[in-house]
């Protein structure tokens, strides 16, 4: 109520200001609450939003969710991550086999898939795409997930123009029109997950060769997925229409999807309430906590709110080579002193408290969670054991983060928790994002590194290999905390090559326990969550990891 009172004088003023321009406001008839599905015969249209423009629609080049969501609708993967279970299922590939040594993967493609210009989708298109993604000239930001393919790393890291490479040495080959074979560097059970990724989806070579960078323009693009790209208005809207050449077109109910670029989440919410969009929050972070509080207290909105975990974790990084964080007891104390439940409930507003790195739903993620639990008494005891009873003699240390409303709130909460629970002073330092990344890179001299900093990770493919190995391996990853090699690193590498699922799960449990419970390389504190609003007539799945499949959505008449 108090919030409302201060609005009154301002409202009066606004009416005065507005009087000059709103002389004849004929009611805007068309923008009301009309449901998208009109009388029979009309196309069924759904309007969704994205907080950022897709940076590309080229599968070989995509790296952010804003690009991957539309790409998912336009291009078929070898496999698809089931929106309900998150497990890879057949898509372009009907079946696949692995050789006994785990090195040769053979995918058998379905024969009824065609490109929107009528050409059949063949194994040659897969081979072309993988080669294109790996070629250094393509400059694909995700080429590294293909490094498990034979010779991919060597070819991709060729320094041009001084060195040369032979693309035909790459471990991918179209055996015949509908069989594609991959040779791997080492056995990798997680290749099945990777085969669902956008980076190696078949692309139309003839279109790329004709139009170059402009091949993804609506006038030129040729696709093979459930939807066609009809329009792309920069910073405004992308329009998709059902693809009549898609082999399962009869299973697609929604004829037209409009993807509106709305970069402000409060505006997104207002447009949802006014009925201008049918789904909000699908391609964005979770709503800000103030908006969430309002949504939850509103009878209509709260019934339309869908929440769940997103395969993404936020954590505090420690510079393990810099005192006092070279002492594992200090790191343990700082991790245990974070009140994770409060963070999730009162600061972020959604999500799941985390003590390990990979969230549930990722293959190999320990369940129940391992790592260091929030425990103030234990935290105090560890800090005392490290030689700083009740924080005595502990130097002032720095926590660095990048400027954003949420990150600032999180940083202040961390600072307060460390002060209250450990009686230590932590200085906060905020930076613009690229400067922040540059200032916390693994190559920064240790004197210039902050003692602690903010980091996060989101899954590329749902397997622990993408987490503990690709992020924290002491030599094969960026290893931002500068950890020395231990048994955990060997085990993380070995788990990727293990072919027995049960064994892999157990190995990853040990790695998570060692890295975040014993060595405390970083302190994971929450797994991010999604908050999506969908009108009651929309029936769909809310995948934790996979991009949404619009072809499985339904509009109830």
């Amino acid at each position, binding site marked *: 109520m108090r919030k409302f009172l201060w609005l009154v004088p301002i409202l009066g003023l606004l009416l005065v*200001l507005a009087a000059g321009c709103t002389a004849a406001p004929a*009611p805007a008839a068309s923008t009301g609450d009309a449901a998208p599905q009109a009388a029979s015969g009309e196309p069924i249209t759904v309007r969704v939003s994205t907080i950022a423009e897709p*940076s590309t629609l080229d599968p070989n080049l995509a790296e952010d969710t804003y690009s991957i969501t539309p790409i998912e609708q336009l291009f078929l993967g070898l496999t698809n991550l089931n929106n309900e279970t998150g497990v890879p299922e057949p898509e372009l590939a009907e079946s696949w086999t692995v050789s006994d040594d785990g090195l040769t993967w053979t995918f058998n493609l379905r024969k009824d898939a065609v490109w929107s210009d009528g050409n059949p989708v063949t194994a040659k298109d897969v081979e072309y795409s993988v080669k294109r993604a790996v070629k250094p000239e393509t400059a694909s930001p995700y080429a590294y997930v293909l490094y498990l393919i034979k010779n991919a790393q060597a070819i991709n890291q060729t320094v*041009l123009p001084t060195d040369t490479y032979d693309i035909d040495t790459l471990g991918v080959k179209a055996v015949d029109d509908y069989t594609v074979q991959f040779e791997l560097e080492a056995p990798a059970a997680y290749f099945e997950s990777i085969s669902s990724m956008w980076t190696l989806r078949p692309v139309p070579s003839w279109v790329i060769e004709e139009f170059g*960078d402009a091949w993804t323009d609506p006038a030129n693009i040729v696709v093979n997925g459930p939807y066609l790209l009809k329009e792309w208005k*920069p910073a405004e809207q992308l329009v998709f229409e059902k693809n009549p050449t898609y082999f399962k077109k009869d299973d697609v109910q929604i004829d037209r999807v409009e993807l509106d670029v709305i970069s402000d989440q409060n505006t997104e919410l207002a447009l949802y309430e006014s009925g201008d969009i049918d789904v909000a929050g699908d391609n964005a972070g979770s709503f800000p906590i103030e908006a969430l509080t309002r949504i939850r207290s509103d009878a209509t909105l709260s019934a339309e709110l869908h929440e769940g975990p997103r395969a993404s974790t936020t954590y505090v990084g420690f510079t393990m080579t810099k005192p006092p964080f070279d002492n594992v007891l200090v790191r343990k104390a700082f991790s245990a002193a974070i009140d994770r439940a409060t963070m999730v409930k009162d600061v972020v507003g959604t999500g799941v408290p985390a003590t390990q790195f990979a969230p549930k739903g990722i293959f190999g993620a320990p369940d129940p969670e391992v790592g260091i639990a929030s425990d103030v008494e234990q935290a105090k005891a560890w800090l005392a054991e490290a030689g700083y009873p009740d924080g005595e003699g502990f130097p002032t240390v720095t926590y660095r983060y990048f400027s954003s409303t949420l990150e600032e709130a999180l940083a202040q909460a961390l600072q307060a928790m460390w002060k209250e629970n450990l009686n230590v002073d932590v200085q906060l330092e905020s930076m613009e*994002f*690229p400067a922040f990344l540059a200032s916390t890179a693994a190559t920064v001299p240790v004197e210039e590194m902050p003692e602690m900093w903010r*980091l996060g990770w989101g899954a590329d493919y749902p397997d622990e290999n993408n987490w503990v190995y690709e992020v924290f391996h002491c030599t094969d990853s960026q290893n931002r905390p500068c950890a020395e090699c231990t048994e955990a690193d060997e085990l993380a590498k070995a788990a990727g090559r293990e072919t027995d699922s049960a064994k892999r799960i157990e190995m990853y449990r040990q790695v998570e326990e060692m890295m975040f419970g014993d060595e405390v390389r970083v302190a994971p504190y929450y797994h991010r969550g999604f908050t999506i609003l969908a009108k009651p007539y929309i029936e769909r799945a809310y995948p934790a990891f996979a991009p949404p499949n619009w072809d499985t959505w339904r509009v109830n008449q």
Partner: protein
Amino acid sequence: MIRLIVRRLLWFIPVFFVVTGITFVTMHALPGGPFDKEKTPPAMVQQMENAFGLNRPVYEQYFIWLGNAARLNFGPSLALRGKPVAGFLLPGLAVSVQLGIMALLFAFAVGLPAGIIAAYHRGRWQDRTATLVAILGVSIPAIVLGPLLVWVFGLWLDWLPVAQWEPLTEGFWPWLSHLILPAITLGAGISAIVARLTRASLLQVLNEDYIRTAHAKGLPRQLVTMRHALRNALIPIVTYIGPLTAAVITGSLVVEQVFAIPGMGRYFVTSITSRDYPMVMAVVVIYAMVIVLANLSVDILYIFIDPRISDAE
């Protein structure tokens, strides 16, 4: 007048080199690069920077950029992969110009009468009200005013669309209705400044002898105001709106975000935070050109308003 125009346009050449040179060097001196992402391994970043020639010395990159710019090729965006920056900036500019002109129209439709009324009723309630409104107009930021207008006129009264853009080709009312709230948000602060400037300037002119003479001759008050006083009082306002127009018609990040409008203003900010060098350069060039043109228009307007000012110097 032709000499004035030619001289001003020739001035654009040194302006161009100074502005682009400084921007280029400053941008490349900022820490972090376009391909630095939380998740991209350093080897990948290196590889991509090589592919886009970012490993060359900065001066060399600048000359390459100059060569391309001379052929009106501002290059592909680094953040929006492979797309020419012009493909984003030109449609954005077209939208921003429409919105900016509407905002200016609103600002003058409100600001000029308010300033005139305040000046004529100096010290009385009309003056105080106008001053109060002007102060509020200047001090309420767009990020507060915008959502407030959305809430009142979009959600509560349901008179106007909440946000988003409709081109004129979709019809006049859809176009206008989507423009009103953002134009008010963008124009509110300007209208307040225009009101204050008009008031101050008019008060000064009203004390001049020739105005007293005009009144003494028994001319109607309105005629004195419109023909004699306002014309001279306009000079400081015209001076002010030159650079202001340039700023307004190239867009505003806040208004574009609040109203989900595909204008050009966003690129002023996002291109820098994403270290999208070609986009930054193109934005700076467009802005410099608009400023030069706006100032030129002001100079031409002076000649019409005040015959004493001419291009002879």
